[in-house]
């Protein structure tokens, strides 16, 4: 077994016939199976199987604290959920969360991407720095923003120049000047989401910008196209696929990661104003009555929605990869 590089190169160049190897017992096929199946088995055991189990549970009245066999209910859980107003509230809160945060992230991210498009000294360090919030634990981020938002000694009100100490705005309690202002808490959470994820969206768009060939702009300059025309006809269509990826990615995340962030900041409050769908499932499944069956049904509805969105996402990823 001559392993040195020189030998290796030599053989590759002269293409001497392969030595017949009797010792090689594993065919490529077997080896491939041996390499893939451990991963597939663990995924099936701890991902696919539980999902089938919860599909079964979603048709029953099972509760994790009741020590009795689950009773088959048919579609009752689903029917109840679809009829309940609280569900639509949660969905609409999640929807508002996604639309507001992803919208702001796209606009701000696009602006930021155009700014960092031209390299300058130290731009590498800066693009790294702005990614820091994204890599932090969302629940921990939520906690320290809770401190920043504190109505009396928080930095946020201080920087806003609030000096009305009797009734300072309390964002996480949705109170403005002592008056309940619904929606304020959700905005406060969205702001943190935007703080965390705008740089990510910006970098995605930036990588799209860099891939635009220069000759397109050169041709436009020769044709004396206005810069607005260049932006609308060259820049925008060229980065559109990546913007779509950013939107889909953030939408999927909004169903999962929004749980951590809102739990850290508000726990769903005040009065359920930031109760995104994930928090609702959590409360149904693990708190109070432990309505395992009902919450499984709700979880399944979200599951189907998320799988549909991720399907779109992965298709677009593949397209971007090839393009």
């Amino acid at each position, binding site marked *: 077994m001559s392993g040195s590089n020189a030998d290796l190169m030599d053989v*590759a160049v002269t293409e001497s016939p392969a030595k017949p190897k009797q010792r090689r017992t594993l065919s490529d096929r077997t080896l*491939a199976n041996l390499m893939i199946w451990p991963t597939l088995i663990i995924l099936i055991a701890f991902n696919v199987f539980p999902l089938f189990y919860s599909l079964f549970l979603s048709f029953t009245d099972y509760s994790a604290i009741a020590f009795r066999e689950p009773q088959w209910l048919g579609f009752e859980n689903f029917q109840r959920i679809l009829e309940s107003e609280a569900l639509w509230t949660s969905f609409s809160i999640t929807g508002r969360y996604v639309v507001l945060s992803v919208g702001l992230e796209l606009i701000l991210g696009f602006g930021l991407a155009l700014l960092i498009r031209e390299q300058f000294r130290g731009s590498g360090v800066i693009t790294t720095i702005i990614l820091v919030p994204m890599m932090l634990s969302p629940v921990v981020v939520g906690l320290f923003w809770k401190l920043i938002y504190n109505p*009396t000694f928080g930095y946020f009100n201080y920087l806003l120049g609030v000096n009305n100490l009797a009734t300072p705005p309390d964002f996480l309690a949705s109170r403005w000047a002592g008056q309940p202002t619904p929606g304020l808490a959700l905005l406060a959470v969205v702001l943190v989401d935007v703080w965390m994820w705008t740089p990510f969206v910006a970098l995605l768009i930036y990588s799209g910008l860099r891939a635009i060939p220069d000759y397109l702009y050169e041709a436009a300059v020769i044709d004396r196209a206005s810069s607005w025309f260049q932006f609308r006809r060259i820049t925008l269509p060229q980065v559109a696929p990546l913007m779509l990826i950013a939107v889909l990615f953030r939408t999927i995340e909004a169903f999962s990661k929004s749980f951590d962030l809102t739990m850290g900041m508000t726990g769903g409050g005040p009065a359920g104003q930031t109760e995104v769908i994930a928090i609702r499932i959590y409360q149904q499944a693990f708190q109070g009555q432990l309505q395992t069956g009902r919450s499984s049904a709700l979880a399944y509805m979200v599951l189907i929605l998320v799988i549909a969105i991720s399907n779109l996402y992965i298709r677009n990823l593949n397209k971007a990869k090839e393009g």
Partner: protein
Amino acid sequence: MSNFEQNGPGFPVTESIRVDKVSPRARLSHALRAIVVIIVAIIMLVPIFVMGLTAFKSRSDVVAIPPKIIFEPTLEGFVFLLTNRSQLRGEALEEAKANIDNVGIFERIAITNGQSITGPSDFIKRLGNSVIIAFGATAASVVLGLLAAYAFSRFDIPGKDDLMFFILSGRMLPAVVVTIPIFLMYRQLGLYDTHLGMIIVYTVFNLSLTVWLLKGFIDEIPVEYEEAALVDGYSRFQAFTKIVLPQAATGIAATTVFSLIFVWNEYAFALMLTSETARTAPPAIATMLGRGGIEWSAIAAGTLAFLIPVLIVIFALRRHLLRGVTFGAIRQ
């Protein structure tokens, strides 16, 4: 506009447009951009900076109005975070105060607050759990992921795209959705609130990341190297260990670190699948708030202790960050 597109400007071009010369105006706008970007970066860092400040504030400085930027730093928050203390009264306190010069810095801070340290706090245990579980799950998911990624990259596997999608789809599901059945299953298997149980959950969760990322890295290694080795009499497996692994070292390192960060930061699974023995740091930090009399400086100290490893890693990994987050789709 359409006429313009088809026929060009529609007027004679009388002056040349030079793209190679940088005008003073372009230079100015370049500088302006740089300044705006720097300002944005500073704004991004303010909250983290605030948190860092809070970790070193005393109890009264934390709640000062207006918030203090300049204050006398203290390790009080860290003492509250890392130790259990009991209240000292009467003679015991006098005695401790008399002895204050002979004890360590943590003890001294406790005595100033009229307390004595009785032992290390729960938080140390939580951090320990985080470390054990993060490393265990990362080791498992990187090894399994590496094998699968190599097979997906090099062999002709029937239904490859569907399998890759299947592997990735697991990760897209919200943790809460997947956890309900896992919780029930773990209760049956006795894996609830165990290190092993958490390692398995995170391995499953991270496999999608490691398989996708590593496949991307392995795809970049020219297949000719291995073919040469095979011709030279290496077995497939030897070619994998002796040619591919060294070539993919950077990629493996990046993947490992991403996997570590994800486990380190994870909250939802840990919240729902652990209670005491195997609870990790993120839910522990979160429940500190639940107790009466919020010790903000202790929370900030805990957050800081938790963030520092992540910050170090980000700078070490900065060239691969985007790639890691998009499962290898986007290369920086």
